[in-house]
């Protein structure tokens, strides 16, 4: 008896829908084993991780707040990944967007110049993210440099640049030497949706991005272009689509969305620029994009789920003394299972019983 992996004649739509759920199932089982090894009761730990946050209104809000940047970044990344180019540097584009938008907030600090400040900050954040993403894209198109490496390396450049600014020129003079800017003025702050909560306008922007992406990918020729360049480059060229231009475009759009998410995060829940504004949103968004099947609606759901793991991880740390890094382990295992389960969309397992006899069905 032999187990073989064989290609399906056509993609299985059922598996395409079910595969993320299977992956989550495998991940939860693996996590349970991991908790048991750590000496915790697996069921209790999983309950704290996945159930408790859903029963508490504050945690629910917090999930939406955390999901906002994840979803926005992942939507942009899905454009790149569908076009078969690999932007791994969304974290850097997120940081640069935050820095560029914060520049205006810092410069207009205390001047009370008017309500245009926040929209201008958002625009600056998106533009800076796009420009920063165009660096690896141009290197790829012009010199054939691997965008995977260049975009990843630029993450660290952005990180250190932000660090320099908040420790140096932009440091709050009244901040007791903490590496942070002053709190942004109200006109430079993303408004909250409900008074007294942390749920802010950015979540609405994220929903608009999801809807726009769904229409773009499913209904427009540009969306078709993105998909066909990724799926069959030679056929795309035959169709009259220019792959180089599309690399630049998808990188610019994903950079813009990451940059926008960055400035919204800083001008929203955080309220000032400081190091560590991202718990790795740009990297977690890669998992969100794949868990969401590179589909906008899927990404929305996946973003909420990954946000849950952040919140659950924090609560597990408080309640059960489980290290916060377990969240990252969880996310890594999840991506691993998602990619493994995805191969079932185009392949399937088959058990072979070798028999040397002539098959009786032969006629």
């Amino acid at each position, binding site marked *: 008896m032999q187990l073989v992996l*064989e*290609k*399906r*004649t*056509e*993609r299985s739509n059922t598996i395409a829908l079910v595969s993320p759920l299977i992956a989550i199932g495998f991940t939860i089982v693996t996590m349970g084993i991991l908790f048991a090894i750590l000496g915790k009761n697996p069921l209790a730990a999983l309950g704290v991780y996945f159930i408790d946050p859903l029963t508490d209104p504050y945690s629910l809000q917090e999930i939406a707040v955390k999901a906002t940047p994840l979803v926005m970044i992942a939507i942009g990344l899905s454009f790149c990944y569908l076009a078969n180019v690999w932007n791994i540097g969304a974290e850097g584009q997120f940081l640069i967007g935050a820095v560029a938008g914060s520049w205006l907030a810092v410069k207009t600090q205390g001047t009370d110049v008017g309500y245009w400040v926040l929209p201008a900050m958002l625009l600056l954040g998106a533009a800076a993210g796009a420009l920063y993403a165009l660096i690896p894209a141009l290197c790829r198109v012009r010199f054939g440099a691997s965008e995977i490496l260049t975009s990843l390396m630029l993450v660290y450049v952005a990180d250190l640049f932000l660090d320099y600014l908040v420790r140096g020129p932009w440091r709050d003079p009244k901040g007791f030497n903490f590496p942070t800017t002053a709190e942004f003025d109200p006109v430079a702050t993303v408004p909250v949706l409900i008074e007294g909560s942390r749920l802010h306008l950015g979540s609405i922007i994220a929903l608009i991005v999801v809807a726009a992406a769904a229409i773009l990918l499913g*209904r*427009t*020729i*540009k969306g*078709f272009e993105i*998909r*066909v360049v990724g*799926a*069959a480059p*030679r*056929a*795309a*060229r*035959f*169709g*009259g689509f220019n792959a180089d231009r599309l690399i630049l475009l998808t990188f610019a759009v994903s950079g813009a969305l990451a940059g926008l998410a960055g400035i919204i995060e800083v001008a929203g829940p955080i309220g000032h620029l400081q190091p560590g504004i991202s718990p790795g949103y740009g990297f977690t968004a890669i998992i969100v994009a794949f868990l969401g099947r590179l589909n906008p609606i899927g990404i929305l759901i996946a973003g909420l789920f990954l946000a849950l793991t952040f919140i659950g991880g924090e609560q597990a740390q408080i309640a059960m003394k489980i290290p916060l890094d377990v969240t990252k382990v969880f996310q890594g295992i999840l991506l691993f299972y998602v990619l493994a389960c995805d191969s079932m969309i*185009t392949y399937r397992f*088959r058990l*072979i019983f*070798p*028999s*040397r*006899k*002539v*098959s009786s069905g*032969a006629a």
Partner: protein
Amino acid sequence: MPDSTLGDPHSGAAPLLQTIGLTKRYGDFLANDSIDIDIWPQQIHALLGENGAGKSTLVKAIYGLIQPTAGEMRWEGGKIVLSGPSQARALGIGMVFQHFSLFDNLTVGENVALGLDGKESLKDVSLRLAQVSSNYGLPLDPRREVWQLSVGERQRIEIVRALMQNPKFLILDEPTAVLTPQEADQLFIVLERLKSEGRAILYISHKLEEVKRLCDIATILRGGKKVATCNPREETAASLARMMVGSNIREVKAPAGRQTTIPRLVVNDLSLEPDDPHGVRLQHISLELKGGEILGVAGVAGNGQDELFAALSGERLAQDPGTIVIDGIAAGQLSITQRRQLGAAFVPEERLGHGTAPRMRLSENALLTGHAASGMVRRGFINIAATLLTVDRATASFDVRKAKRDPEAASLSGGNLQKFIVGREILRNPGVLVVSQPTWGVDAGAAAVIRQALLDLAAAGAAVLVTSQDLDELAEIADRIAVMFHGRLSAPLATADASREKLGLLMGGSSLGHKEGAHAAGA
């Protein structure tokens, strides 16, 4: 005509190689369904069948490349199970593939040394190679690099490499597909010689005249099953074709009322450097194609046909706008989309990955070439109903068989996908159609449908340029035939005047006394 020294092969104890109930299953698909075949020494055994009939699967199993799902093989009477090609070679089975496995940047000697299992030094291999090749009249210089060689010479390397292992049984997979008629004749002499030395040969082909001339026995496969074993010399080409296809093939007829009007596609002295270092440079190509006319471009593969297609379609731009003129408009610098808007349509050789995106639906593949000029896109939004309508119309007009309304391109058989692609382009009513290898790897029924569609399109006033390696196909549909060789295009010959001998000489690089680049008037 058995040789006396070996006696009647059928009176011997056991065949050299025998398969009994050999079956190979891929998923739900039976590629080989219980096939029995006997190979005797000193016979050239033809394996006939359409594309997809299971020929390649069968020989791969015999050569140990794939393991059969069921059934057994016997070598000189004893049961064998092959775990890989090296085991097959050790028994004395050699194979020459249709697609060569040669490294372009290595020399002939190095390529052969790489393919041998032994531990001979490169010098010894080169020496033996020179001996074997001169012995069989297959001249080869071991020191030349492969990329400099013609396709015929590359095939020679593969044959000599197989012969150096002194096989008792040699398998050749469509060896003449890439040869000029004259080169094919030389190959037949070598094969006769191998036969007279007592070796067995399994000869895969779908060229029936060739099989009748060369082979002693023929096994015919259809849909994975063996349908007949016969003596091809006692059959007619038509009766062999009937066994291969299972029915009579529809004859293609040129409709009446074909008119030659104004030139619709003109190429003026087109020269283009290749974008890949081993590509072919197009040199001074000129042609003029009128409405209602079909021009055939013959030639051995790799003589610039792909480069010509890329230049005509606009996948690569010409240096000068005036070198390509579509319906009176200089198009040399226009993109493929702009050329489509001028009413041109293109069908490339590769169906999957070039003509279509394999994992996308037919409606999306209709959009792939239709987005420029057929109302499928409005203000950037896709009209999905219009793309589905194209699928339905192509399905109805060209008899595209598929499991559901809008499947993925890759799930269609080669013939049905090709009918869809040709249909997709013809439904746009193109004024100029450039089509490359329209019936390559397509079953006979689909090929007839496609050829008829090309004739009908020309009759409706379009200019059609067909590149093909199948001379019979060109003779059937083209008004004039030109030949590509080393990136140059010969002056076209009227089809009635284009004998196989003349075309063969042109395919081999002779000029027939014509001046190169000369224009001939329309037929």
